[in-house]
């Protein structure tokens, strides 16, 4: 065989070898003990009394929030979670709050927003998207693989069309856009209108992004009787406030390694779940941080707002010599000052003039 033949075969050999590439490096490994697509079973909508006070209603909601953690699937399939509920004949409101809160740092040299003077720690946030539809339309396999509500139909000419039977549409900031989501780590609420009595509905939470630092995403989920617009007015408008609503479901930054909550276990929910804000174990400092974000909206001069919280964190780094984990997994060991979980970002990453 002449050497020229080898020269011609070399590209073919390269193509064949390219087919053998191992792409597992692009997906996170499964975290032992952390489910990737858990199914929580049936949720019972929280009743709302006509004469409910905002504080009383908020306490009711918070004691019925189902908290859970999800992790990677170890494959290219998305992680997520499912739950179900029975239609009541009226509208139902679904509330979801994924870990934790996120914002864009204000770097304007002329009109900076003081609340957002510090950067967000983007590594500890994740994102979930709500989709809800009649269970008969759900395409996934509960507990195994996440699906959606996109159904194929065939018309009289034999042409296939796909319809999205998602019945829970998040109302975002832009009314012109029919499909919107809350954004990274943002609280989401949507109404399933006029549910059919006795019909099973599936809530499919799509794991759009897991936190970069530890790939464990905590979140809180609750179903409430009535439309979200009614709920918002009963809560005094909190649901419509971009900042204050983050505190309707508090404490979704769940401390890893905690056992399932007693109330969740008694209610028959699987691992890893907790029922109620009082039961869920939360990372140290997470509640204060979340509250400081919610305080942005209110006239609360006596309480920390976001910038004050972040300043304390930065001071701890610069004055006490501790460091933040940021993109690395935070340490559970409180004495480990090198891998402390910080909720605000690295101030040295702030863009400067000419660097944007």
């Amino acid at each position: 065989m002449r050497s020229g033949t080898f020269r011609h075969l070399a590209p073919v050999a390269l193509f064949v070898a390219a087919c053998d590439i191992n792409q597992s490096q692009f997906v996170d490994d499964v975290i032992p003990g952390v489910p990737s697509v858990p199914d929580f079973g049936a949720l019972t909508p929280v009743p709302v009394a006509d004469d409910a006070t905002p504080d009383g209603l908020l306490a009711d909601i918070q004691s019925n929030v189902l908290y859970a953690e999800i992790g990677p699937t170890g494959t290219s399939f998305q992680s997520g979670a499912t739950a179900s509920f029975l239609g009541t004949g009226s509208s139902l409101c679904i509330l979801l709050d994924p870990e934790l809160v996120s914002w864009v740092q204000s770097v304007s040299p002329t009109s900076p927003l003081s609340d957002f003077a510090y950067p967000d720690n983007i590594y500890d946030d994740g994102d979930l998207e709500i989709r809800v539809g009649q269970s008969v339309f759900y395409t996934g396999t509960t507990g195994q693989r996440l699906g959606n509500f996109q159904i194929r139909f065939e018309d009289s000419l034999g042409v296939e069309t796909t319809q999205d039977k998602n019945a829970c549409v998040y109302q975002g900031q832009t009314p012109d856009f029919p499909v919107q989501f809350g954004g990274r780590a943002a609280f989401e609420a949507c109404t399933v209108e006029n549910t059919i009595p006795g019909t099973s509905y599936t809530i499919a939470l799509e794991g759009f992004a897991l936190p970069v630092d530890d790939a464990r995403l905590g979140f809180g989920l609750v179903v409430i009787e009535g439309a979200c617009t009614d709920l918002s007015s009963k809560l005094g408008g909190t649901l419509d406030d971009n900042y204050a609503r983050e505190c309707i479901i508090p404490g979704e930054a769940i401390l890893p390694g905690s056992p399932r909550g007693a109330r969740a276990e008694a209610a028959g929910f699987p691992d890893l779940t907790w029922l109620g804000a009082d039961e869920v174990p939360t990372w140290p400092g997470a509640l204060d941080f979340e509250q400081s974000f919610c305080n942005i909206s209110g006239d609360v001069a006596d309480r920390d707002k976001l910038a004050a919280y972040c300043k304390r964190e930065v001071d701890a780094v610069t004055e006490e010599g501790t460091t933040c984990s940021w993109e690395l997994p935070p340490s559970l060991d409180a004495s480990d000052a090198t891998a402390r979980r910080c909720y605000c970002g690295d101030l040295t990453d702030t863009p400067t003039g000419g660097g944007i």
Partner: protein
Amino acid sequence: MNNKLTLISWLALGMASACRYDEGLSIYNLSGTVTIPRAAATRSLIDPATGVEREVTDVRLLGPVYIGLYPSLDRTREQFPLPEEVASGEASPYSGTTIGDIRYGCFEFFRCKMLSGRYLSYDDIIDFYTNVLGTPPKDDFENVIEVGQYIQQTCFDLLEVTSDDEIRVLTTKDRNEDGVVDKNDLDFVEDENGDFVGKFEILQADFHPGMVAWGFLDDAEIFRTTREEDGAIVQNMDEFTTCDPTRGYSEGTYQRNYRAGLQATDTLNRPLNYLKNTEAWLSDQGFTWTDPAEPANIVLDVSVVDGKLEMGE
């Protein structure tokens, strides 16, 4: 050298043949006409000059026309034909278009009333409201608009544009290429029978042999009210039902605070939602399309008022 030439020749031949590859896509630029009966453009209106009721036929009374491509028509759901529903109330059209788009007339007065392809000049707009309906248009400060140039200048100012073409309200092109821009260049032109015919194109449409082109006219609704001050009867045009006043251009200059309105998003997908609440003309037969090169002719021959059949042929 010869080997290289041979290789290059084969490569060139291969690339050239690749350019002729048939992807099997059934996508075409479709065209056709919509014929609207004269009655759709005719109203009994009080003449503002004399106070006497008279019959007016005016192309400016024609609302937006919606044309969709559907698998078939369904005559079982209502007294009039509707597109086949593929699932759950959705017709899922293959494609579609409009003749007449809802535009921003640069004053809140025109919200959800201003269409493209109906006017030749700004004075034409003022003439319609003042001399046909008897309700002169007002600006956002409640001043009567008497000069067309005021509309133009306000549009230039608010939209930050410098030509009528950018405002997209007036017909400025000599569409029929007869050397003048006149009423024969509007979206709808009167034919020899006194009906109105408009041309349409649906570009890059999925073509499925046997599909039906069907459409409807969301006609202008003229309402009358009695003015408190002097008891005079005032006529005006209602907002088009297929216009969503919460969408479209957002005006927020000084005390102006409104949206200009825009076509609703699902007029072709759920036409019945709109036919229930408007005066409409729709097509009884549609046009069964078997050859994409053949122009369609859709006749809107059925009158429907608030979802009820008025007359048919």
